[in-house]
């Protein structure tokens, strides 16, 4: 772009605008002027849009009100992982499953208490990916973005309802996708290998109408876990555009679609027979951000998301369908403002209106939509009292039309005891309101107008479960091997954990005696433990990651309702992650995760260990202006390990990935 002195190419803001307008009238073009210089003083004097103002600056790790694990694009690429869950399994405190048996591969933090991932929150570019359909689950959301479209994943290990509201009860996975402006050109990848692995992806980034745009289309599929009917195929399309609407404002548009076809069930289980299921989701997100000045940002975010589930199969013993199908949707409108009051104080406040809707006759025994309205008001203040002391204090007041109001506060103190050595101490309370199903589930089987059986009839008495987290942390930036150590000691005191039990319903009027399932606030318990995470870059091209965890559930013996609950949390676990670059573009990555004395999500009476080791060897390639890499990945090198249930195992499998970009 060449500047013209007669028509300044940059607009000024504020008071300068008037003066400039007068100047434009006053200083008319020179007749017969010589060619103008291509550089002028306007390059030095003109305003430019504010890009990095307060809210877009992430906090440094020693300033965050809790423990974080950051996963960058390079780590994701080198790890050989195929989806987000494959990456999260390496994060301290996480347990994952690759099964499609409930909805999609799951990830849980501090306990896989059920086959649904309901106690963590997943945000994709700030959008909640929580599916409110059955028990609540982030699993489909975790699958909704292709790994190659991800810039980084920030895992907040600990309760964060103070910032993100209900559902961020035990942790938050924040997925940041790659900016369209950084994804220009063509990218393609193909993957093929054992266990029926067939993945393809095409990404295209371009500029149009002054905006950067990116479209990604992909498909991933495999035969699923050994012993399962879990063959699966996921198709996704995601589009995003960054539109500079004004000098100091930007509109980001994200829209996407996902379709999952997956097999489920067991040949020998009449209540969960072999069947084909499908899931569809689509969303639209409009995110308007304005930098009021270098000290203040405001943002307005609108999201619409809809989902449909098809899971229906005839029951072998009666003319009825086993049906879990339905549709769900949610709409959210959020306003957020961030302001720096002084060099030492900044705060964020915001409000969100959210409406969630679920419609399913088989599950709620009504054709009407069950609607839950959420109103949220939140704020967090960061105050650097002295150069060494940083306070983060905040909270979220929340009301939902299904289970009432709650307030989730948090206070965290970060003390830099010496340069590079930060101690954290804090306390936070978080809630998870019961899902619509836990509050109003109503599953009944009717054949030819006759009520056969009621299997679920929630009585609506269940209240939100809560957790009070107390934690101490230590973060050290060490010169030794250029490493970083993070230690977290925690006590998650869970109150009113939501559990289920059957009860007799003699007056149900069903042909068979109905003992439907209901949900209630059951046990109180504490999960106590320690997590240590050490990451090093000891020499050029090398990364070493070591995590170690120790945890146990503490509860009152006299009040135990579910004896197997404590095995939901592994007693100990570790991750070893090694990556090294070699000459001529070769790279080797080894990732091992080991969990000891843990149960499986669908089999509570199992106790055992789970160990999985992945290896990936890759070589970067160049063909003229094209570059890429080819990688050979061996997942679960040690052989079959149980996953999801005792009948399923994650197979040892190898595949080849070829990636090209211009």
């Amino acid at each position, binding site marked *: 772009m060449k500047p013209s002195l007669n028509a300044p190419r940059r607009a000024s803001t504020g008071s300068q605008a008037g003066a400039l307008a007068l100047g434009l009238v006053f200083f008319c073009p020179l007749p017969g*002027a010589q060619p103008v210089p*291509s550089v002028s003083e306007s390059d*030095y004097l003109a305003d430019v849009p504010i890009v*990095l103002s307060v809210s877009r600056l992430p906090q440094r790790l020693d300033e965050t009100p809790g423990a974080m694990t950051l996963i960058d694009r390079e780590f994701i690429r080198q790890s050989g992982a195929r989806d987000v869950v494959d990456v999260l399994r390496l994060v301290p405190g996480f347990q994952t499953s690759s099964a499609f048996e409930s909805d999609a591969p799951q990830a849980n933090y501090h306990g896989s208490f059920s086959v649904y991932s309901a106690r963590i929150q997943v945000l994709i570019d700030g959008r909640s990916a929580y599916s409110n359909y059955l028990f609540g689950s982030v699993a489909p959301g975790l699958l909704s973005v292709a790994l190659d479209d991800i810039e980084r994943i920030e895992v907040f290990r600990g309760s964060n309802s103070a910032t993100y509201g209900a559902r961020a009860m035990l942790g938050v996975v924040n997925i940041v996708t790659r900016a369209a402006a950084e994804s220009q050109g063509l990218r393609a990848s193909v993957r093929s290998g054992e266990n029926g692995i067939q993945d393809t992806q095409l990404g295209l980034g371009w500029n149009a109408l002054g905006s950067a745009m990116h479209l990604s289309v992909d498909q991933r599929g495999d035969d699923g876990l050994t012993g399962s009917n879990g063959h699966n195929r996921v198709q996704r399309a995601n589009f995003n555009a960054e539109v500079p609407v004004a000098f100091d404002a930007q509109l980001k548009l994200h829209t996407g679609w996902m379709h999952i076809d997956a097999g489920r069930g067991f040949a020998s289980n009449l209540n969960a027979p072999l069947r084909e299921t499908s899931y569809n989701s689509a969303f639209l997100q409009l995110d308007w951000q304005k930098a009021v000045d270098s000290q203040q940002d405001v943002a307005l975010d609108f999201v619409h998301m809809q989902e449909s589930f098809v899971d229906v199969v005839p029951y072998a013993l009666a003319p009825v369908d086993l049906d879990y199908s339905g549709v769900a949707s949610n709409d959210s409108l959020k306003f957020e403002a961030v302001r720096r009051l002084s060099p030492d104080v900044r705060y964020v406040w915001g409000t969100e209106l959210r409406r969630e809707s679920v419609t399913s006759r088989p599950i709620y025994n009504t054709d009407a939509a069950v609607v839950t309205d959420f109103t949220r008001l939140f704020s967090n203040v960061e105050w650097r009292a002295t150069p060494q002391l940083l306070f983060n204090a905040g909270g979220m007041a929340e009301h939902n039309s299904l289970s009432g109001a709650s307030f989730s506060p948090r206070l965290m103190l970060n003390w830099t005891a010496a340069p590079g050595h930060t101690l954290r101490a804090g306390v936070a309370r978080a809630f998870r309101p019961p899902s619509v199903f836990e509050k109003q589930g109503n599953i009944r089987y009717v054949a030819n107008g006759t009520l056969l059986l009621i299997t679920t009839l929630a009585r609506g008495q269940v209240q939100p479960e809560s957790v009070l987290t107390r934690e101490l942390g230590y973060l050290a930036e060490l010169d030794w091997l250029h490493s970083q150590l993070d230690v977290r000691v925690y006590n998650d005191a869970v109150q009113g954990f939501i559990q289920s039990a059957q009860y007799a319903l003699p007056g149900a009027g069903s042909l068979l005696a109905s003992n439907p399932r209901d949900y209630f606030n059951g046990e109180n318990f504490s999960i106590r433990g320690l997590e240590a995470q050490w990451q090093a870059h000891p020499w050029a091209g090398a990364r070493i990651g070591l995590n170690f965890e120790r945890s146990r559930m503490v509860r009152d013996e006299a009040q135990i309702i579910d004896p197997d609950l404590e095995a939901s949390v592994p007693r100990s676990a570790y991750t070893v992650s090694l990556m090294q670059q070699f000459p001529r573009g070769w790279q080797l990555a080894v990732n091992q995760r080991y969990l000891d004395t843990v149960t499986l999500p669908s089999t509570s009476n199992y106790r055992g260990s789970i160990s999985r080791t992945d290896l990936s060897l890759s070589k970067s390639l160049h063909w003229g202006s094209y570059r890429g890499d080819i990688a050979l990945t061996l997942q679960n090198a040690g052989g079959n390990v149980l996953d999801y249930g005792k009948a399923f195992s994650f197979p040892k499998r190898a595949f080849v990935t070829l990636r090209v970009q211009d």
Partner: protein
Amino acid sequence: MLRWLRHLCTGCCLGLALAVAAQPTPTQVVIVSSEASASYTQVNTVLIDALTRAGVPKAAVVLLSPSELAQRTKEGQLGLTRVFVAVGARATQAVLAADPSAPVLSTLIPRQSFAQLLQSSGRKTSARLSALYLDQPLRRQISLIQLALPQARQVGVLLGADSVGKLPELSALAQDRGMTLQHAKVNGEQPLFQALSVALDGSDVLLALADSNVFNSTSIQNILLSSFRARIPMVAFSSAYTRAGAVLSLYSSPVQMGVQTADLVLGAWRSGRVPERSVEPDDFLVDVNANVARALGLALDGAALRLALRRLESRP
């Protein structure tokens, strides 16, 4: 007869007085300003105040727009000008087109703009035509990097058609100070993002040089975000860039430019000569974006850096 002669004398005296009264005051300083926006107004105000304080009659200082200068030149109304001051590139272009007889000092102008205008008008720097540059000398920019980021060993730099000429000097300076330059050219074959990846690769700092082919209001977002994600601080050339997200900026403010311009203009007013060689700004500011510095784990003090730089240049 005597009466007639008296009338004639009175008439002559009156006519002479009228003629004297009608003679325009000889103009001493003509300031031509490219624009009337805030920065130019600040330079002009500081300059006129300083000239007035130094004894130049206020009526002897005229402020014109480039089009007014052209008009007055055409009508021969410029009077006796002792010094022309051109504020900005467009004003310099207009003054050169007027082909003035008095010395010309161009100010608030980047070195390259001045060179291009000299070339297109077939002139050379002399005691009758020189400039006070707006841009900072490259050695000062490298010194700032050394002072602010002493660990920096590799300096990334993005070059476009208007800045690629600085590469040899910049490379030599970096080498002298024990640093390496990781440069990437932005052109049709290598679009911005690719060039940025090259410039950031392994660099400890990104040095921004004014070039609208590279740094403009459309590209700045991507450049700043990319360098921030790579945790590579950007050192830029204007306070607007610090506000936008560059960790540091080195620049001369309009007030500082106005003060130094006034010194040079007073010298020319007294001696009838402008400096034979163009001069660089001798005062400057260092701005720090505290938000970005904190996020990058840097403790920087703009005022202290400015003083350290001045001491390095043996300035008070």
